[in-house]
């Protein structure tokens, strides 16, 4: 098991390195190819109407004229080992993982990300609880009652659900639930101190979409599992149907769904961009989006890497959990 985990960990680190390199290359090379110069990049940092000396100073400080691999090397080094930063009057340590400083606000990108993570986490986890509960139970019931009215209605709603993007349901609920009927207060959540139930609307909108997907997935998985030979065996042993369904069926069904869940939650933790934009919630996704809109490269890079980290981490956790749940994986 330990070897298994170590192997997965190494794989995850490798994956992250590749992603960071590709991200770095794309965010630096593509604009270059499109004609953006290091002066332009320095200009973003310099604010209004910078002069040549200012630009030169900024380029020098951030090493913007270094070859890309050198810049990438420094970037990775500062993530691993931290960096020091000269404020003019003193040197400030930017401890590892140092993701550099925003071109726009001069704030530490790491700090900004740390600030936003709880917000996005609250959105994602709240929604996840709802959609897993709703999606899985509806999926299981539908599979067990295949062909019944319940199944038809549930699957109809689920198919509609996967066809409803959050930016539609979100805007609709804002327009009517919040503004026209005043049933819920404005969605407002900025950090751990705030009342998490302010996020009710984004939770529901996000969970609706995912619950629909999970209901479909669970139903399909459950139907497949319930046709497995081992279910037949369980029945042949004379086990009560409840035991057959829950102990033998559900456990096998949920294992692959766990994988999908890992990917989904990883993606969301990295920034629920659409949801955050729809409801203007200042999470990681919004940070990244703002970074893109302001061409704030360090922020975009940092946010992208964080998002990738969450995905890789979630997959890692799922992999390990898979090993715990499925002895075949553990022993292979």
């Amino acid at each position, binding site marked *: 098991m330990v070897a298994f985990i170590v192997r997965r960990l190494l794989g995850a680190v490798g994956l992250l390195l590749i992603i960071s390199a590709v991200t770095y290359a794309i965010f630096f090379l593509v604009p270059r190819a499109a004609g953006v110069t290091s002066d332009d990049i320095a200009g973003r940092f310099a604010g209004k109407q910078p002069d040549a000396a200012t630009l030169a100073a900024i380029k020098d400080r951030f090493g913007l004229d270094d070859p890309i691999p050198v810049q990438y090397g420094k970037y990775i080094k500062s993530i691993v080992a931290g960096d020091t930063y000269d404020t003019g009057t003193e040197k400030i340590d930017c401890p590892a993982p140092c993701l550099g400083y925003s071109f726009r606000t001069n704030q530490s990108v790491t700090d900004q990300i740390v600030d936003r993570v709880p917000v996005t986490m609250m959105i994602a986890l709240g929604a996840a609880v709802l959609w897993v509960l709703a999606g899985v139970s509806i999926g299981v019931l539908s599979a067990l009652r*295949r*062909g019944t009215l319940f199944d038809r209605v549930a699957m109809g709603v689920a198919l509609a659900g996967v066809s409803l993007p959050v930016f539609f349901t979100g805007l609709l609920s804002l327009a009517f639930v919040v503004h026209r009927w005043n049933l819920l207060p404005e969605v407002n959540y900025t950090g751990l101190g705030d009342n998490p139930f302010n996020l009710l609307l984004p939770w529901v909108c996000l969970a609706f979409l995912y619950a629909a997907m999970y209901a479909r997935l669970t139903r399909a998985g459950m139907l497949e599992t319930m046709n*497995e*030979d*081992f279910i*037949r*065996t*369980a*029945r*042949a*042993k*004379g*086990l*009560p*149907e409840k*035991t057959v369904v829950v102990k*033998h069926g559900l*456990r*096998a069904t949920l*294992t692959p769904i766990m994988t999908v869940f890992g990917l989904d939650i990883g993606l969301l933790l990295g920034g629920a961009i659409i949801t955050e934009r729809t409801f203007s919630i200042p999470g990681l996704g919004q940070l990244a989006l703002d970074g893109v809109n302001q061409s704030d490269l360090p922020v975009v890079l940092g946010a992208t890497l964080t998002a990738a980290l969450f995905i890789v981490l979630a997959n890692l956790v799922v992999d390990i959990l898979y090993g715990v*749940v*499925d*002895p*075949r994986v553990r*022993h292979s």
Partner: protein
Amino acid sequence: MARKQQAELINGGSGDSSGGRGAPTSFLEVRDLKIHFPTDDGLVKSVDGLNFQLERGRTLGIVGESGSGKSVTSLGILGLHNRRNAKVSGEIWLDGTELVGASAGRVRRLRGQKMAMIFQDPLSSMHPFYTVGSQIIEAYRVHNDVSKQVARKHAIDMLGRVGIPKPDKRVDDYPHQFSGGMRQRAMIAMALSCDPELLIADEPTTALDVTVQAQILDLLRDLQQEFNSAIIMITHDLGVVAELSDDILVMYAGRCAEYGPVDDTFHRPLHPYTWGLLGSMPRLDRERSERLMPIKGTPPSLINVPRGCAFNPRCAYGDLNGDKSTTERPELLELEPGHKAACHLPLEKRREIWDSEIRPKL
């Protein structure tokens, strides 16, 4: 003794239709069993009017190509068909209890205890996430009110009895850690954990290599002697049947094509389909120059079963009967004591063909 039981079988099985003749005397009696599956493409008649009887301590071999209804029959006896998508009719009497009309709960309580099943592919038939031991314990405890420790001891005991070395260690292994033969033994241990009186083995040796096959068959035979169970052996391997069974039932398109004591059926088969089965059986003692005689064509659609004799499109001798083959369904008739077949060909003609054309080639 053996003769007498055969006679009972013959008598009981001669009638073809309508059940309701009161409680049977046999341990297991199947009467006019029909198992149909309605699908979008039509009604699939997997089993369409099957009769047979079986006593304790005896073994019945059911043979046929895949899709002939063998497995559906066995699942039907255990009541494992989903009542929503399978239409089951007829009667199944097990030790005086009718199962088709019984409540699901009643049948469930019999399953695993009074009747058990050994499945074809032990790897997919055991839950991959639970240890072999826990799966046996579960089977035992559901019918016996004992503590986990007691059940565990029983499981180890059972594993030992089916010949698994170091059962006290292997009890905590997962199915995928067992070899194929060991897995099948574990499967058998699980099926036997409650000393079932009826054991259905569905292709118990198909997935195994030959040496292991023999071991498993030996094991089954030994266990039958020990428990005096009735065994239904489902297979398409006539060799297995020959070795283990007392009687043989050849199924074709959901119906019985030929039925009889194993010796009679092997040495004087009365149905062209049986001939085909025998002809397609590879044998070590056969000359290399001689070729297998496979049955031409493919098994029939169970939705549109050929009119008349279901076997007629594939039967080399169907023409000898004129229209009859395609218009009239042959009845299952007792042609020799205890030996029945459903064929339009005159009995003499059949014997002649068997003796002159088929047997020499086998």
